[in-house]
Structure formats: C-alpha cells, structure tokens
C-alpha cells in the first residue's frame, strides 16, 4: 500500500487544499482537534465541510424557510420530508440535483441521480410511488445539447423504468443560459404509514451497524468536493458512476422489508461522501458516536485503504443500525434478495467517529466537529441586485400576432413534451390517475378515495430578472398547478440551482430568491419539508439563470374532483380567474423579441395569488369546474391553445380593448382559466365576488378554431389542428437531427 502523507506533511505542503479544505478551515480543524489531523481525518473534514455536504454558504439563509405546520410529519433534516394526507398515511418526498455528473456523462449522471433520490425516499420507510424530473438545457439547435438532452431523458427512464416506479411529471426548459450547465433535478414521492417513519439516527449504545447493498469500490472518491468547483476538468474527476437500477430495486425491496420488521433503529443511504457522511450524520442525529471496523467493509477491489473506503461513492449502498439481538433478520432478508450485508461497527456514546483498521485507530474525531460545527459562511453579498432586464430595450413589436403565437407554441419550452415522457414508464404500479401532460400529476392511494398530487415548477428567467419575486413565483406556480388538478397543496421540496456563491451578486440572487420562496410558502401554507442546494453552476465565469425548482405535493380528497387541464367539450363557458393584468415583463414573448430576458419579473401579488388558489379550490370542490389550467409561459394565448389541443375542442375568446400583446402573451401570475358548464357561470361569479377575486367570462368552447380577439381590431384565429401540429412537432423534429457527443 502507498504510504500516506504524515500530518506534518499535510500541513507543510498544504495538502489539505487538494482535499477540499481552505487554509482557514484547516487551521480551525487543528485548533478544535488540539492536534494536526492525519490523512484519513483530513479527508473526512474535506468532504463533510464541502459545500455539497455542509451547506456552508446557504445554511444561514435556508433557516428562513417555514418548515412546520399541522400537516408536516417530518421537516428538513432527514433523508426526505413527510406530510400527512389523512387516513393514517404519510407522503415522503424530496428533490435532488445531479447537474454536474449529467453534464459529463448524461445517461449515467441522470440515472444515478434518480437512484440517489429513490434511496432517500425508501430510507424513510416509504414505498416509492412516483418520480418527477425538472430539466434545463441550452437551445436544441446545438448538437451537443441534443446529445445531453437525449441521454439525460434516456438515463432517467433507464433507472426509473427498471425499478418499476412511474415517472408522472416534470418540466423541461430550453434557454441559452443553460448551454454549458444543464440542470437535472429528480424528485421522488413515496407512501408510508404515518406512524412508522424510519429515521437516520444511530441510537442505542452497542447496537450493531451494517453496510448493505453493493460492495465498496474506488468510485467517485471526492465527488462531493469536486461537485463544488467550477473547473470543468475537476468536475470531470468527480468520476461518474454507472447506475445499477437492478441492484437499486433489490435494495429497495430488501430495505422496505427490513424496516417493516421494526428492528431497524436507523437507516441512511450512502450518497455523496459515502460512508463518511452516512456514519457521521447518523451519529450526529442521535447525539452519540459510531465505531467502525473497516477491515469488515466488503470491498470490490483489493488493497483499499481506509481513506478510500470512507470516501468512496459507490452506488446502491445503505448504512443500517439494527437493534442488538436482531442481527439475523438483517442477514436473512438481505440474503433472500441476494444482497451483500456485513456488520461493520457499533453505536457508541462517546460522541466520536472512530475508525479502526488492522487493529489500529486510523481516525478518531468528534462527530459534532465534523457535522454540526462545519463552517457557516456569511458570503459576501452585494447590497442591491442589479435587475438586468430593466436595461434591455425592446424592438418595436410586430402586429403579426398569429406568427408570434405559433412561434411560442413551437418553442421547445412550451411545446408538447411527449417526446420526453413517452420514454418514461408512466403507468407501472397501475395507480396513475393523471400522468404527464396535465398541470399536476395524480397518483391513487390504494384503499382510499384519495390521490396524491404533485407538480414541479421554477422559472429561472423570472428569478434572474427579479430574484425575490421570481422565487415567490416558483412556489406559487407549483402550488397553482396542484390546485388546477383539483387537489389541496400541502408542502414543498426544492432544488436551489445557482451559480458561483463566491460571487456577491450570485449570493444576492440566492438570498433574495430564498426570501421570496419563504414568503410565498408561508402565505400559501406550503411549508418546506426537504430540499437541496446546487451551487457552482457556472462555466467560464458565466452563471446559469438562478433556478430554484419547487416540487409541491398535495392531496385530492375526492377522486371525482380530479380536474383535467384541457377543454372537455363544446358549448361551455370559459372564465379567466384573477386580474386582467397585461404587462409583458419577463415574458418569453419579450425574450424572443429582444434576444434576452427583458423587463422585471411578471406581475405577482401574493395576496391575490392566495385568493385565486382558494377560489379555484372551492369552485372545484363545488363540482362545476370541467377543466382548469393556469396561465404561465406564453400567456393567455398559449394557455387557451393548450386547453384546446388536448381533446381538439375549439374556443372563441373575446377580451376588452387595451394592450393586445399583453393580453395575448403577458405572463402576469395568479391567473387560472376555468371551463364551466353552461348555467354555472353565475354561481362561479357569485363565489368569486364573495372571495374578492376578479373573474371574467372570456368566451365559449366549441368549433374547430381557437380565436382570440382584443377589443375590436386585434384578433388571432387559427384552426385547433394547426395549433396542435405546431405544438406537437417541435421536439420530435429537433430530436431527429444528429447528436454530437
């Protein structure tokens, strides 16, 4: 075995730097430890104090999120959050990013991202019931972007389809801001008995600690540290792994079976920083310690050093603490599933992470120093965010409205997403009530009359233009989509994808976006129960749009209130709920006109948003809403077209005079289109008046055309079939062109 540098050499030659520690951080370790850390110990601090594991730049801000409420069974801090949907059922869910690995190996990067989030959810003792994914890429004209996109989608499907969990929703946005830094965020939702949440605490002195699943190899050593750098060469070194969905599926079944025995004290998946983070975090949650005998770790390669074992990021492994005396359960169940299981240590009460190898103590450090005392940075923040869109001058808009309409419908961000989701198994488990293609997905809860609703949203352009408002919109829009499906939003998870936190302007984006998200989640009563931060999404000094992605989970209490997002038939009233605001700030229309995002974030008032969502919930509960769809990217014209193409039902809409462009394509928030049966208009209007929500009848469904008229002069009138063909053609056509790896 290669000899490792001595503690003295580590200090003298600043070797800790390559292991992820700054000079200050190293000094702090030495001071708190009262001695120089050895090589293994330095490695432990390097990964646990990395941005990825310690949230050192973001922790101070994340505290501002509301995280509690009567519906919350488990807030942030565990592997996933859990909400109560009644009937004794809890829903566990979390979202996670896999941006950097996906940029260098899109198929495996995306696949292992799905595998990781899956483990986070079943670790809670929850049976996974659905996946969602939120994707950002550059424009599809670029062959390399097509390669990334095609392989990310294939990788998500490759893992999710194999483990037999339906992928029921998500989003995909294409903008030059993401050309060099695609975003791949995966969300998993699971179901469990509300009183049987498994947690990741290593409790009970003397209890045995097991490593189960795959053997440990030399994969991805330093993945967590390298994820937190902007150097693409270094990102590459975060050695990509090959996902093993087959093993992932067996591990899921085995762990759920094991947890159901009641003999599991604590369980945690080994994600970033593998054995190091799982053992230290489990000990920290219990306020105790853990002792590991590394000779016992099943290794795939011979001659692995303690350092390598502790930092390996080999996939599909879990750390499990069992009740003493129940060891045989672990062996029986894991062997039945043909999986590796080994007892490698025990729980202690001395608050230390102690590692032994060949009888020697190779590391012995306080858990609290590793986990709880990780540095927290008040990174430098600019005082005020300079809103870049306010400087953009706009070309004179053309009044060829129909051309602009079709251009928006053909934009990959708006266009039909079947090319993506037909590659996902959306109906396995035979519980998908509403899969992709609607505002939110609905998954049945067996044995009840309920369904779980879920949607992801997050418009980076809005956040870039105005981080605070944009952050709030991300939350509002995801909740609004859940409301449109007929459900009641309960709580959210998120992935905060940002640029380099060492830049004061980026930290301002972050601070403001988090502030706005917190405000909206408080006002809408959707607390934050889990989440993830991904910084350093920059290449060559250019950062992505700040992109918080929000995943909202809700409950549909009565199945007959499931509400589609497309028009159901002819001769129905079409109503616009919410203010008739016509500003074009932040719209995709303006971006296409100006070549870059323009103006402020769209119009958004949180009080109005809350009232609109409450009204639509009440109207759906009353039973006279036939379809509901929110107005989002592309504005009212795109929303009407989307409602029309679903089942090929036309619509004639008439709006009062005033800014036709804004009426057609403005993206003011807090607006929902409803289709109501003939004769129900007055009832809805009365309800809206009582709840102080503007509500105007704008037209009727029927015919083969979608027409929109503003005042008496400006009009668009296009056949539903034409709109559909434009809307449906984009992704298949673009993706038919050759890819460039």
């Amino acid at each position: 075995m290669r000899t490792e540098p001595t503690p003295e050499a580590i200090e003298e030659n600043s070797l800790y730097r390559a292991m992820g520690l700054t000079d200050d951080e190293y000094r702090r370790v030495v001071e708190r430890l009262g001695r120089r850390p050895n090589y293994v110990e330095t490695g432990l601090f390097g990964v646990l104090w990395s941005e990825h594991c310690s949230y050192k730049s973001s922790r101070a801000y994340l505290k501002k999120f509301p995280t509690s409420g009567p519906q919350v069974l488990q807030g942030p801090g565990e592997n996933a959050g859990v909400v109560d949907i009644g009937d004794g059922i809890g829903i566990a869910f979390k979202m996670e990013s896999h941006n950097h690995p996906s940029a260098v190996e899109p198929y495996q990067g995306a696949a292992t991202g799905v595998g990781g989030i899956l483990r986070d959810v079943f670790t809670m003792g929850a049976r996974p019931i659905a996946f969602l994914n939120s994707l950002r890429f550059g424009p599809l004209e670029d062959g390399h972007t097509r390669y990334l996109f095609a392989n990310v989608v294939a990788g998500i499907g490759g893992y999710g389809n194999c483990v037999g969990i339906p992928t029921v929703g998500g989003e995909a946005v294409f903008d030059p801001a993401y050309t060099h830094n695609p975003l791949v965020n995966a969300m998993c939702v699971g179901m469990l008995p509300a009183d049987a949440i498994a947690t990741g605490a290593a409790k009970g002195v003397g209890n045995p600690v097991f490593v189960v699943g795959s053997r440990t190899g030399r994969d991805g050593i330093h993945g967590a540290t390298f994820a937190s750098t902007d150097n693409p060469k270094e990102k590459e070194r975060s050695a990509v792994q090959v996902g093993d969905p087959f093993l992932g599926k067996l591990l899921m079944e085995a762990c759920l079976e094991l947890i159901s025995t009641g003999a599991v004290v604590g369980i945690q998946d080994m994600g970033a920083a593998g054995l190091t983070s799982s053992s230290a975090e489990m000990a920290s949650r219990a306020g105790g310690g853990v002792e590991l005998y590394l000779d016992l770790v099943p290794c795939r390669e011979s001659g692995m050093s303690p350092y390598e074992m502790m930092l390996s990021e080999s996939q599909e492994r879990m750390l499990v603490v069992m009740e003493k005396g129940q060891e045989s359960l672990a062996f029986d169940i894991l062997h039945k599933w043909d999986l590796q299981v080994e007892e490698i240590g025990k729980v202690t009460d001395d608050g230390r992470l102690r590692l032994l190898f060949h009888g020697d103590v190779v590391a012995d450090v306080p858990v609290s120093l590793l986990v709880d005392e990780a540095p927290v940075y008040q990174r430098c923040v600019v005082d005020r965010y300079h809103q870049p869109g306010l400087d953009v001058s706009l070309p004179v808009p053309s009044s060829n409205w129909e051309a602009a309409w079709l251009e928006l419908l053909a934009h990959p961000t708006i266009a039909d997403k079947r090319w993506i989701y037909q590659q996902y198994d959306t109906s396995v488990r035979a519980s998908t009530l509403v899969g992709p293609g609607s505002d939110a997905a609905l998954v049945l809860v067996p044995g009840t009359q309920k369904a779980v609703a879920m949607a992801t949203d997050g418009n980076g352009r809005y956040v870039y233009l105005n981080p605070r408002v944009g952050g709030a919109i991300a939350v509002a829009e995801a909740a609004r989509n859940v409301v449109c499906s007929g459900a009641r939003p309960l709580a959210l998870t998120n992935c905060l994808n940002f640029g380099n936190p060492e830049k004061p302007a980026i930290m301002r984006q972050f601070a403001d976006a988090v502030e706005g998200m917190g405000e909206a989640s408080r006002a809408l009563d959707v607390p934050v129960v889990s989440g993830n931060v991904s910084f350093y999404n920059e290449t060559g000094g250019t950062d992505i749009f700040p992109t918080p992605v929000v995943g909202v989970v809700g409950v549909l209490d009565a199945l007959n209130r499931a509400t589609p997002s497309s028009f159901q038939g002819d001769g129905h009233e079409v109503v616009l709920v919410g203010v008739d605001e016509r500003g074009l700030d932040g719209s995709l229309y303006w971006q296409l006109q100006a070549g870059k995002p323009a103006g402020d974030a769209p119009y958004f008032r949180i009080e109005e948003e809350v009232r609109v969502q409450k009204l639509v919930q009440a109207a759906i509960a009353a039973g006279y809403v036939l379809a509901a769809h929110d107005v989002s990217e592309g504005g009212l014209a795109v929303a009407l077209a989307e409602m029309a193409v679903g089942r090929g039902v036309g619509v004639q809409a008439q709006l009062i005079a005033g800014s036709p462009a804004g009426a057609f394509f403005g993206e003011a928030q807090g607006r929902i289109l409803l289709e109501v049966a003939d004769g129900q208009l007055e009832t809805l209007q009365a309800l809206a008046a009582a709840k102080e929500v503007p509500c105007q009848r704008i037209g009727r469904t029927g015919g083969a055309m979608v027409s929109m008229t503003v005042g008496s002069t400006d009009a668009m009138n296009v056949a539903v079939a034409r709109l559909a063909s434009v809307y449906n053609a984009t992704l298949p056509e673009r993706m038919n062109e050759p890819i460039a790896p």
Partner: protein
Amino acid sequence: MKWAVIVFPGSNCDEDAANAIVRVTGDSAVLVWHQQTSLEGYDAIVLPGGFSYGDYLRSGAIARFAPIMTAVHEQAQRGVPILGICNGFQVLTEAGLLPGGLLRNADLHFHCKMVELEVLNNRTPFTSAYQLGEIIRVPIAHGEGRYHADEETLTGLKEGDAVAFQYVENPNGSAMGIAGIVNERGNVLGMMPHPERAVAEFMQSEDGARLFQSVHDYVLAKEVSHAH
C-alpha cells in the same frame, strides 16, 4: 381458480398483474418466488413485466435459468395456460417456450403509451372473449419489444394462426407488426402490451380485462368438462 404470478428479481409488474386478476376474475392470485421449484395446483401462470435481473445482457436471458422455470416448462407441457407479459414474453422466448426473440425498439427509445391492437386469433384460451378482428386498446411500456424471427418462423406463425395480437400502428419495428403470439398448442401466450394496465376506467381502457376473463372461463370450462 388459482393463478401463479412469478416474481423474478427485478420483476415490477407482478403486483399489478395479481391485482388485475383479482379485480377482473375474483380468482386468487399468488406471487411465486423464482426460487420455488413447483407450480403444482395452479390453473394459470403469469410471467409479469419488469426488468428481471436488470435485463442485463439481453432481456429475459438470465431469468430463464431461474429454478421456477423448470416448473414453468412442465406446466407448459401439461397444457396449463401460461401468459408472459412484456418481460414475461421476453423470458418465454429466451426459454424456448415461444419462437423468435425481442430486440431493441427500432428507434432505440423506450415507448410508454396506449396502442391499438387487432385481435387476429380469438380461439385461444386467452382471447376467446374478443371478437376476431376487433381493435382493442392496451398500453405498451418497453424498450426492447421489436419481435424478430427468421422468415421460416414468421411464415409458420402466420400459417399456424399463432399471431394473437398485431399492432395497428407498429411502434417498435416488430416483424409483421407482431404484438403477441401463442405456441403451437395455444396454451402459451407472450405479448409486449400490458393487459393488466387496461382493466379500469381510470386506466383509459378496460380492454385488457377480457384477456384475464378468457383464461378464467377457459379453465372453468375445462374443469366442467373434466368433471363430466
């Protein structure tokens, strides 16, 4: 009657199949672990969809060696109805219980969507509740469903009336648009589409229900005729 649904490591439509059977026929459906060696006492056997052994190497290639497969062969010999769905179909071809094989879809993409099938043979234990030539709607969800066989085999299938279901619009490049075939004796059916995902209104189609009903009726009729 009693159905067996085989569970291989990596099967993931086993419970869906069992639930569909119970829902449609009211029969009992037992999940049978791949390590078992006997299928005595079961009136019908289902090899469900999923990714047995990860579908590594070739889909179904490793599952065919599972201990339970010896029993599946025995029951096939005895004329027990055996239904392979998706991965189950792949296992049956790899095991030699059905001719041909299934390759990666011609466009290399996994496809999950509702498709239309034409019933080309309604004189099997699996299809008697359908009309000949009827168009039914059943979802597919597979990446390797392109049916392949040599010319001679294909001619044999055609002449032997062994093609039970044909895609109305071929989604994967299958030879002769084959979606499902039966063996010569008619008691082994393999199909790529998922009838267990088309047995309730919310699933957008209930056309799959009659497949399970057909098997149920067939087994009961046989029991009656034996009793006489």
